């Protein structure tokens, strides 16, 4: 193969792959989760009685036994930090100051964990097992989105 050896002779064409117009269906379990969050300020999970597992976010099926799930339970707004990371750059590689603290929040032994952010805490103060509570947006600002939870903060 004869190859190009002069960089000035290399040609590119800029393109744009348009992918930002979707209408994502939240589904049956998502309706329950986001309605409870928006209207009542509650976090719901879906319970599989036979496996003894509660899923948050809720789903209409159990990934262990494949049962259809229709039992929703209020998990409360308090949990603990299962793991966390201090993110110091944003998606474009720019430094984040203050950094973002991202965490997996556990709502108990038999419950799957929720990915979210921590706030009102310094990075060096966070530890695995730290007890935290959800800080919700005021009801009039809630839209039925995962960002209706602003972040989780340490329980004083």
């Amino acid at each position: 193969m004869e190859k190009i050896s002069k960089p000035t002779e290399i040609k590119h064409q800029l393109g744009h792959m348009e992918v930002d117009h979707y209408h994502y269906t939240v589904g049956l379990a998502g309706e329950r989760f986001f309605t409870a969050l928006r209207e009542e300020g509650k976090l719901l999970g879906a319970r599989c009685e036979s496996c003894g597992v509660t899923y948050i976010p809720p789903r209409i099926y159990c990934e262990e036994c494949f049962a259809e799930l229709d039992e929703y339970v209020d998990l409360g707004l308090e949990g603990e930090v299962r793991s966390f990371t201090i993110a110091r750059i944003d998606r474009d590689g720019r430094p984040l100051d203050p950094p973002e603290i991202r965490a997996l929040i556990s709502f108990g032994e038999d419950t799957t964990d929720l990915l979210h952010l921590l706030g009102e805490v310094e990075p060096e103060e966070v530890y695995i097992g730290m007890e935290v509570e959800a800080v919700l947006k005021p009801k009039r600002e809630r839209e039925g989105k995962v960002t209706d939870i602003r972040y989780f903060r340490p329980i004083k």
Partner: protein
Amino acid sequence: MREVSIVGIGYTSFSPVTPDLSWKELMFEAATRAYADAGIDPRKDVQSFITCAEDYWEGFSIFDEFTPDQLGAALRLMHTVAGDGLLGLANAYMQIKTGLFDIVVVEAHSKISDLLTYEDVLMLAFDPIYEAPLGGHPHYLAGLEMREYLAWTGTTEEECAAVAVKNKWNALRNPLAPYGAAIAREDVLSSPYLFAPLKKLEIAPLVDGAIVLVLAEGELARRLTDKAVLLEGIGWSSESPWVGTRLPDARYARLAAELAYAQAGITNPIQEIDLAEVDDRFAYKELQHLEALGLARPGEAGQLLLEGAFDLDGQLPVNLSGGSLGMGDAVEAGGLQRALEIILQLRGEAGARQLPDPEVGLAMSWRGLPHGSGAVAIFRREA
């Protein structure tokens, strides 16, 4: 029982950028070399072609329709696997094993330098309702998993840093690896905490390149070449896509390995496997994967690494190619990049990093963030 062998390998250089060649030309170059290596004519001898790709990496949709011509596959049987190269290899294995075909070609490539917004595209792999709206740089998930892996196993940050030191050093002996470097553990530990405890030098940089493998039925393989390498087993597994449902134990790797070991008749992997190439796109993943594969007991991979067990002259050399930390993260070509090193070693063609007499090698891939799926392939040198 029909056997499956690798009879041809072809690959381009691996480079952070390849501004002169289009992705199709990269594939053509690797394919041409693979067919020459196997001594076959793709227009006459190959019965089935398999490519591995993901539309978003390529920048256009319905990738599979764009692949036949540059592989010599026009008007022939072909399909695309939307996943890592080892999954394509698994498809080829089954096609030959079942007797459907005798010669099958597998291709995977990366032209990821064409993508100007890698992080944005990677973020599109996150759940659009529950995860993506939280924003951020997608690598934060690796920082989350790393911290939990360390807490679970007692593995230390020093041990994770040592993975990057080893693999970048190994890469210095691999002419195909652009990210080789002689660095000290201190260099890794003092590189910025981007997603603490994950550090900058523990993240594999991206790379371009293409790999093509030619597979043949065992008896035919022996007639075609005297350097056939047996593919004795291949397994794969997908865990829950929900980050909060998975544990930091890479169960996908364990389940994939169990299937591959059973097919290959391996009962004691530590004793029977001579070298391994495992996904290391984030340094801690190498240790986590080695434990999941049964090549170290849980929590012991880091200590074994510090003792030299996974070095070139250790009891189980790991990522002699340099891994992804040394060769670069070739997206869906990552699994074939791992397999390539095993095949080169078993053929005795690994140059300055050649092991004396390896018989059995393992290649393992992970699909990457944010998911928990992987594949394992076991290769054996012909007796």
